[in-house]
C-alpha cells in the first residue's frame, strides 16, 4: 500500500434515523447530512467536476418510512482530524433524529460504502392482522420455496430472486404484534426490502421497519463491521 493510501483521511460516521425523520427519502437524508457537515466547520474535499460537490459516500438507501440504528457515511478529508472532535462537531450541527453516534478515521483508498456493506439486519413489526406465528412461518416458507417475488415499484414491475438476498429470519412477539428479525444480503441483481417481503406474505405493509445493522460479508461468510 502506498503512503498516500495509508493516510487516514476518510472519516466514517455511524448515525441513526429515527422518529418522524424516518419519512425522509435517501436524497433528503444525503442533502441534510451534507449541510450538517458544512455547518460543523469540518474540512472536506470538493470534487473537481462541473458542480464542485462535497466528496462523501453513503451506505445503501434506506426505504422511506424505515428507521435505522446503523447508517453510515464516509467523508473525504483534505487532512487528518481528531475523530472524537469531529463527532462532537457533527453532533452539534445535525438534527437530533439523524445524530451521529460514532466516528472513526480510515485509510483514504477503500471500496465504496454502498457496495461494500452488503449485509443487513432488520427488525420488522408485522401488520396487526398477522398474529399467527405458524401461519406467517408457513407463508414465508412458501415464498422462499418459490424463490422469487414479483412486485411493483411505482408503475414498474420488478422481480427479485430470494436465494441470495433472503439470508435468515426469526419470529418473536412484540407487545400484541408479531415481529420478524430479518437478515438480508444485497447483490448486483438487487436487495430485499422488508416491506416487499411483508406485503408478499401478509398482503399488507408492515407497521414498522428498523435497520439494526449493516456489515460486509467476507468470502468465508464472516461479517465485518463498517467501524
Amino acid at each position: 500500500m502506498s503512503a498516500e493510501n495509508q493516510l487516514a483521511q476518510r472519516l466514517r460516521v455511524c448515525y441513526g434515523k429515527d422518529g418522524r425523520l424516518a419519512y425522509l427519502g435517501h436524497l433528503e437524508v444525503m442533502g441534510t447530512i451534507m449541510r450538517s457537515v458544512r455547518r460543523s466547520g469540518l474540512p472536506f474535499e470538493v470534487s473537481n467536476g462541473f458542480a464542485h460537490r462535497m466528496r462523501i459516500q453513503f451506505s445503501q438507501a434506506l426505504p422511506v418510512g424505515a428507521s435505522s440504528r446503523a447508517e453510515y457515511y464516509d467523508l473525504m478529508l483534505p487532512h487528518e482530524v481528531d475523530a472524537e472532535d469531529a463527532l462532537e462537531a457533527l453532533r452539534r450541527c445535525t438534527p437530533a433524529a439523524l445524530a451521529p453516534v460514532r466516528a472513526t478515521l480510515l485509510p483514504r483508498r477503500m471500496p465504496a460504502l454502498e457496495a461494500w456493506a452488503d449485509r443487513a439486519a432488520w427488525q420488522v413489526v408485522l401488520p396487526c392482522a398477522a398474529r399467527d406465528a405458524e401461519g406467517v412461518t408457513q407463508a414465508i416458507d412458501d415464498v422462499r420455496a418459490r424463490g422469487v417475488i414479483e412486485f411493483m415499484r411505482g408503475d414498474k414491475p420488478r422481480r427479485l430472486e430470494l436465494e441470495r438476498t433472503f439470508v435468515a429470519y426469526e419470529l418473536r412477539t412484540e407487545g400484541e404484534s408479531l415481529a420478524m428479525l430479518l437478515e438480508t444480503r444485497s447483490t448486483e441483481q438487487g436487495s430485499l426490502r422488508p416491506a416487499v417481503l411483508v406485503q408478499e406474505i401478509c398482503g399488507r405493509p408492515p407497521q414498522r421497519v428498523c435497520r439494526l445493522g449493516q456489515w460486509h460479508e467476507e468470502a468465508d461468510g464472516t461479517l465485518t463491521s463498517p467501524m
Partner: protein
Amino acid sequence: MRFPREDLFSLIEPYLGEVERPSRYLNHEWGAVEEQDGPFHACVMYPDVYDVGVPNLGLAILYDELNRLEGVSCERAYLPWVDMSARMREQHIPLLSLETASPVASFDLVGITLAHELVCTNLIEALDLAGITLRAEERDEDEPIVIAGGPSVWNCEPVAPLFDAVLLGDGEGAVSQMALAVRDGRAEGLSREGILRRLARIQGVYVPSFYEVKVDETSTRWGYAVPREGTGAPEVVYKHCVDALSATEPVAQRIVPYLPVVQDRLTIEVLRGCARGCRFCQAGMTYRPVRERPAEQVLEAVDRGLATSGYDECCLSSLSTTDHSECATMLRSLHDTLGSKGVRVSIPSQRLDSFGVDMASVARSSRKAGLTFAPEAGSQRLRDVINKNVTDENMDAAARNAFKNGYRRMKLYFMMGLPTETDEDLRGIAAMSERVVGIGREVCGMRSKVSVSISVSVFVPKSHTPFQWAGQLPLEETIRRQRVMLTAASDRALRISYHEAETSLIEGALSKMGRKGFDLILAAWQRGCRFDAWTDQFDFESWKQAAADIGVDLEDVACEWFDLDVRLPWEHTSPGVSKGYLQREWRRAMEGRTTADCTMSSCTGCGVCPTLGTHNDLAGRRS
C-alpha cells in the same frame, strides 16, 4: 369557533407513508423555532405546498421578527398537497401548523402571503380546511384575526372579504405592531371590531370591512371603495415603508428544509425596489424607493448565513441585483472567498448589457450553464413604449460577451400583447433571437452547440402601473399572434415556449375586478379549482363555468380597457406612486418616449418620496 390548541400530529402520521413527499409535513427542520410557549400565538401561512412556500423570503422575515417578540410565538403552515388534503378531509382533520401540529384555527393571529393572483382559490381552500369562517365579517369574536400581505396586495379586492386586515408594503416593523395590537386588544377584552380599529391606525394596514364599494358614472363597473361612516378609516391607505434596508436583519432565512425546494439556497436580499420604470412592471412601481444593503453587510450576512445553514449556494436577491452600486465589489469578493469551498453564488437576473454578463461570469465562475435576459419586446419602438431602456446594440454586446465567456445557452424572455404591439414587433422577437444565434455561431463556430430559448408570456395589465388601463389580449388573438411569431422564426437552434394563455386570462380577470371578484373565486373553488398555478391541476373549464355562474365572461373582463380618468377599484390602497405620474407615463408610452431611472439621473416625479416621506438609499454611486 376557536379550536383548542393541541398537538394533532398523530392524526396525520398514519398517512405519511401513503402520500407524495411526506417530508413536507414533518417539521423539526434545522433552524425552526421549537419553543412555542406564547402566550400569544401567531401562524404565518403560505397558500401553496411546503416546497414552494419555504423559500419565500417575506414569510421568513415575518417568522423571524415575530419569534423575536417577547411573549409572542410564531409557527408556519402550508397547504397540504391534494393527496394529503383529501385524507384530512375524509378524516375531519383540520389544517395544522408545522411546529406544534396545532390546528391553525387555534391561533390568535393567522397571516397569509398573497404571492400572486393564482393562489386565490388556495386561500379559500386553506381557510376552509382550517375550519375558519371564510368571510371576515361573519367570524365569531374568538376566531383568529386573519391578515394578509405580500406582493399581490395591490388589487386585493377580489380576496378582501377573506381578511380582517391587509398589510400594504414592507412587513418589517409593521407585523410586530399588528401582533401587539391584537394581543393587547384581546387582553383588554376589546371586540373584534375594536381590534380592527386599532389595526387600521397602523401605517399600511387596510381593513376591508371598513370600506364599502360604490359604483357610479365616475367608476368602472367594479366600482371603488370608500370608508364607511364612523370607522375613521382613511380614504387612501398608503403602504408601510422601511427607509433603510440596512436597518433590517439580512439573514432572515434560518430554516433549512429536508426536501429539495424550488429555490434551495441561502437568499440574501441585497436591494429592495427598482426605479428603471418598466411600464408593465407592478413590482417596479410598488416596491419604490430603491434601498441598497451596503456590501459590507451583505458579505457578513453571506458568511454568517452559510455557516449557520450549511447551504452550498447563495443568491444575492433583488429585482435588479446588477444595478446595485457595489455589485462588482460584492461578487468579486464572494468569488474569491467561496469558490474553493464548493459554494456557488447566483444572481436572479442579468442586466441586459456587457456589465450584466461580466457579473454573471464572476458569480458563476466555472459553471457556464446558461444566461437569461429579458428584452421583453422585439423592436426598439415597442421597447420604448414599455420603457425597457435597452437597445439592439445592448443585446448584441451582451450576447457576444456571453458567448466569448463560454456560455452556450441563452434564454430570452418576451411578452406578447403589450399596448400598441403589431405583427412587426412579433417578427422582431424572432429576428432578435435569430441574430443572437448568429452571434453565437460567429463567436463559437458553426458547429458549436449554441442554443437560444425564447419564452413568451402574455402581458397581464396590473394595478398601479402605467399600463393599468390597458386590456388584455383575447385568447383567439393570442393564438394568432403566436402563429405570426412561429412562422417568422425559422432557425432550428431556436426553442420557443409560451406561457399558457388560459392561466394568464384568469390572472388578468382577477387583476381587473373589484370585490365582486370574490364571487368568481368562491364559485371556482366550489367547482373544485385549487392549485391553479400548477399546470396539472389548472382547470380552465371550471373557471369558465364559475364565471358563468356569477354572470360574467372571463375574456370580457380581462380584455376591457379603462378610461384614463376613471376611478379604479384599487385606488384606496396606494404604494405612493401618484395617479398623475401613471397617467403621464401612459401618455409618454403612447408617444414612444422613455423615462430615465431616478437612481442614475434626476427625480422623475413618481410621488413616492414626498408621499411616504422617504428617499432612495444607495450604498454608492450607480453607473
